[in-house]
């Protein structure tokens, strides 16, 4: 028995839509099997994981809190991946953005002004962009693989944050906890409206970013340039586009969004800087980007789905006693199935049971 692929003359629009849904379905099935092996009732477990968190209002606020950085980063990564620039270091850019955005509230604690918050956000974005400029420079001018360089920088960024918080930026009144001073109210990202609980403006930023990038990709020449350079550098050159300039654009753009997500998370959700500021948002955002098929509107949906896996993991731990590691497993499974189902978009799959010879006696 053999599986054979036959290239479709054109990418299937139908499967472009169906593939992510199919992937989610397969993930659910695999998850049910996994829960069963762990000795839990699969239906109960899936319910606790995916349905329960959607039933409480406060839980929906949490969903928005978790989805915001995923969508923001995911949208930036979509621009990168579409242009064939593999930024895997968004987690590091997130971290550095959080650091640079926290300079004002931590170092200049005496400065109170409505300008603080906007400046923090801008500085966070710039910090993320500058950190992303490193792999961009190394790829554009030194021909160095950006996957490995951006990834190594993640470890470096996290170690840097650790050093800062345990050293110079440790709160002197903090009972020696590795935390910074708590941010003043004007340095805190506010809730979207009175009743939105913990859900803060980061979610709005994320949606706006998604809409802007969607418009850019679909309608403008820049979007066209991104897609063409991702498909064929040669054709892009023929069109007059520069793949070197696109390396810079895509990395700076996604770095800025990741940095903005970083400072938004610290300022809006945590309220101070500490060594652990992200449950792997930068990496989960990669899954968000692929599940959303590198389309910003899809990414809004997939960001919410992956945010749900975080909540589901916590919920399953509480109500079923399942390890919270289950979240990571689900996330990995989602990406796995998305990649498998994507094959259907470009190829027809034929299962060949036996060889049929052409008319030989």
């Amino acid at each position, binding site marked *: 028995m053999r599986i*054979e692929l036959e290239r479709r003359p054109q990418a299937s629009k139908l499967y472009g839509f169906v593939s992510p849904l199919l992937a989610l379905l397969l993930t659910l099935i695999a998850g049910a099997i996994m829960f069963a092996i762990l000795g839990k009732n699969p239906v109960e477990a899936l319910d606790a994981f995916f349905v329960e968190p959607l039933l409480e209002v406060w839980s929906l606020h949490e969903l928005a809190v978790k989805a915001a950085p995923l969508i923001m980063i995911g949208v930036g990564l979509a621009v990168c991946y579409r242009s064939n620039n593999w930024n895997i270091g968004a987690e590091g850019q997130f971290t550095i953005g959080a650091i640079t955005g926290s300079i004002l509230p931590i170092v200049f604690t005496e400065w109170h002004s409505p300008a603080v918050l906007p400046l923090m956000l801008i500085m966070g974005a710039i910090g993320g962009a500058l950190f992303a400029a490193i792999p961009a420079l190394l790829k554009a001018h030194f021909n160095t693989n950006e996957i*490995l360089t951006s990834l*190594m920088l993640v470890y470096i960024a996290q170690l840097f944050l650790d050093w800062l918080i345990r050293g110079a930026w440790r709160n002197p009144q903090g009972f020696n906890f590795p935390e910074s001073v708590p941010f003043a109210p004007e340095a805190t990202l506010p809730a979207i409206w009175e009743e939105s609980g913990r859900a803060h403006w980061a979610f709005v930023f994320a949606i706006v970013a998604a809409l802007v990038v969607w418009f850019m990709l679909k309608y403008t020449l820049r979007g066209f340039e991104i897609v063409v350079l991702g498909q064929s550098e040669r054709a892009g050159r023929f069109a007059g586009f520069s793949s070197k300039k696109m390396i810079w654009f895509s990395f700076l753009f996604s770095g800025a969004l990741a940095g903005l997500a970083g400072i938004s998370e610290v300022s809006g959700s945590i309220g101070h800087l500490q060594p652990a500021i992200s449950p792997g948002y930068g990496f989960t955002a990669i899954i968000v980007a692929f599940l959303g098929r590198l389309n910003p509107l899809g990414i809004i949906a997939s960001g919410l789905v992956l945010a749900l896996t975080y909540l589901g993991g916590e919920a399953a731990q509480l109500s079923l006693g399942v*390890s919270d590691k289950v979240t990571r*497993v689900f996330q*990995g499974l989602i990406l796995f199935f998305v990649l498998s189902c994507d094959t259907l978009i470009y190829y027809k799959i034929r299962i060949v049971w036996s060889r049929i010879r052409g008319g030989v006696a």
Partner: protein
Amino acid sequence: MSIFEAILLTVITASTPLVIAALGELVAERSGVLNLGVEGMMIMGAVAAFASAQMSGSPYIGLLGGIVAGALFSLLFGFLTLTLVANQVATGLALTILGLGVSGMLGEGYVSVPGVRLAPIVVPYLSDIPLIGSVLFRQDLTFYLSLALLFGVSWFLFRSRTGLKLRAIGDSHSSAHALGIGVIRTRYLAVMFGGACAGLAGAQLSLVYTPQWVENMSSGRGWITLALVVFASWRPWRVFAGGYLFGAVTILQLHAQAFGVGIPAQFLSMLPYAATIVVLVIISHNRRTTLINTPASLGKPFVPER
């Protein structure tokens, strides 16, 4: 034993997993497959080795468990990229994320459990040679395996017919297919070999390096392995040398931290990662040599026409 010898011993222990995993990945990449999931395969090997050693009481069963886990896990990668022709970069990442997640879950019960250690094998007579003897011939099995792999992979790639076919596939899979060479079959085997090696490297981590299970204990070694293969221009002996270079950096900065050098611990910990970046830049910036050394079909999707 002098301090010098003791440090050398630790360098060997730190370098061995890198060398083993990199030799496996080298074979896979020489056949044209870029498997970024080394980190995932390595951590799965680590947890499987730890668990098998615990359950059986024997560290050798542990090693076997690590190898098998790595190979099976790599099959997932193979299926997605070779049969379904999925994007190799994304699939490698998926493998890593899944591996980190599954291993974390499987390993939960083993945190803080004392591990079964793989004891050193003392080679008679040779281990009595001053200096070299105590360093080289009182090592655990994985060190000797790493040497065997070095010679084996070198011989296989450059002196055997099958190795020639594998290199040919890495150069041009379409030409290889046109000549009737089984491209997909060979690549599956190469990927599984890479997985087995990564699994063995992971086993070394949880049975020798620190006989313990800690979540994410591979700490990015899988990624460093990938950089190592590029740095070595896909040649086995250079992989060995590079592995020891990285191993030395990794372990020496740990010694420096313990020793209390004036530099903060976090910056010392950054050294292996920073060194990886520097090394990559040095080896890659000459486009000409990069082009000549890189297997031409690396990472490219292959769909045979029938």
